[in-house]
């Protein structure tokens, strides 16, 4: 067992009177693929927003690699090599697929106005390297033909692939994936899942995945955390979670459990 890379301690976020995340504590082991499941409204996406700095928690702390990242903004969180995807794939519709990938590169010389004006040679050289890397990645995920198309012409599934390509552009330690399989046809879903497993296996990324498709979760995760009403309800291996009657009850209510026994 390796140590925890992400620790969430007593995190609470209230919207009006409703606690979306309520005193939630959990740990994600380094190098693992950890699933996060729970009924609708359990606070999974809010938890992701709290971890990555899009929301400020009312109470509690988030530690990443032992460092307190609770009060950081998203771009500072990114600098500690933590990235996330979004429930509905985000992209830059009016920019080409290639540009979509190149934005994320770090330490770009040309992002300073002075360099952009007076050192364009160096800037161009660096951009060529980034472009080469982006093209290699697009080849790998089989989107190379579309590299000069605006991202708005990609299908929903291709946009999900683009998000995974974006994660390959930079060195990351951990990625939070918010429903990577949602709204994707089954054939493409397998492809996306194999790319996701590849992220973990080849690049050693720690993955923390919210997903409603139980087949996906059970197949690729080594630990599953169940969240109910803003809390860490239970956790364990897929086997343990699957056979835990309390989880089934939380998902389907008491009626569901009775139905199962029928």
């Amino acid at each position, binding site marked *: 067992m390796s140590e925890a890379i992400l620790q969430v301690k007593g995190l609470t976020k209230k919207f009006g009177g409703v606690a979306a995340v309520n005193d939630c504590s959990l740990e994600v082991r380094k190098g693992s693929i950890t699933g996060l499941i729970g009924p609708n409204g359990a606070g999974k996406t809010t938890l992701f927003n709290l971890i990555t700095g899009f929301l400020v928690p009312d109470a509690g702390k988030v530690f990443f690699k032992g460092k307190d990242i609770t009060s950081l903004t998203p771009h500072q*969180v990114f600098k500690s090599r933590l990235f996330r995807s*979004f429930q509905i794939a985000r992209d830059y519709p009016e920019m080409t697929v290639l540009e979509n990938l190149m934005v994320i590169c770090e330490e770009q010389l040309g*992002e300073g106005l002075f360099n952009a004006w007076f050192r364009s040679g160096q800037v161009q050289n660096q951009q060529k390297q980034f472009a080469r890397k982006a093209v290699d990645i697009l080849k790998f995920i089989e989107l190379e033909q579309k590299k000069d198309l605006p991202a708005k012409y990609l299908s929903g599934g291709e946009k999900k692939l683009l998000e995974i390509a974006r994660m390959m552009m930079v060195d990351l330690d951990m990625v939070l994936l918010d429903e990577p399989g949602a709204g994707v046809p089954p054939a493409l879903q397998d492809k996306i899942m194999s790319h996701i497993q590849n992220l973990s296996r080849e690049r050693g990324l720690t993955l923390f995945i919210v997903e409603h498709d139980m087949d996906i979760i059970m197949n690729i995760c080594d630990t599953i955390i169940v969240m109910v009403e803003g809390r860490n309800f239970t956790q364990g291996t897929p086997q343990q979670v699957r056979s835990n009657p309390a989880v089934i009850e939380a998902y389907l209510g008491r009626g569901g459990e009775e139905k199962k026994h029928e």
Partner: protein
Amino acid sequence: MVNYLSSYLVMACIYAMLALSLNMQWGYTGLMNFGIGAFYMVGAYTSAILCGLPSPEHLGGFHLPILMGMAGAACMAGLIAYLVAIPALKLRGGPFAIALLAIQETFFLIIKNESWLTNGVWGIRDIPQPFFSLVNPRFYVFIYLIIAIVALTLTYLSMERAVNSPWGRVLRAIREDETLTDMSGKDCFNFRRQSFVFSSMVAGLAGAVYVHYTGFVSPQTFSPLMSTFLVWLMVMVGGTGNNRGVILGAFLVWGVWVGSDFITNLVPASVATQIGFIRMFLVGIILTVTVLTRPQGLLTQKLSNIQLIEEEKHA
């Protein structure tokens, strides 16, 4: 006639600089700046005060060289933009537009009423004009046309280089999806502020180029219609997000604006006195036709600056 054409071109160059400034904000960064005239006005008055002759009625008379006046105008507009950015850039979209609208109105009132500073509605006279003594005043407009073209060219080149660099790509990324850009490790507030301050400096420079052309400045020039909405129309007609497009838009719209003078000879005298309204009417028609038939503007935005690099690679 040639004189007339030249003076049209000088003003069109000045408006083209304003259109470039607005295009960087709206076309590339997505900042809906409805107060660009404020920075144009600040630039104009700064240069007028720095370079003007001493006068008992208002601040000024520093009689600095004109180039320093222009630099001062750009710096002052940039400084004010930096300060305005602190509260205003927390807003986005419509609320940002309204905040800037209010800022323009505030500056307009300050300049109109603080006579010790700006001589109020009477304006500042006798602002020096560069190389004025070199030629016959009748031909001075040609000299100034060269200055205006140089200023526009420099602005255009620096803008093009900036927006086609990775810096400009981050601006476009912010326009397209700020959440994702933020998560991708870019300090979006900082980039938006850089874009806002730099383009406001360009607007300030345009103001300086204007006052040294006319030699006179008063608040009337900077009404929201003349200094903001006309510029918006130029950007929309020319092509949001395309620097060449907005320059074309500026020349076209300004052409229609001054060209409507010629109508006065063709219509009955009773209509000719209403020429100001005919202008507005024409401008309204242009706007409507643009929005209905070519909402993206005459020239569409260029998609990518990286294609070039790739082609080079394959070659």
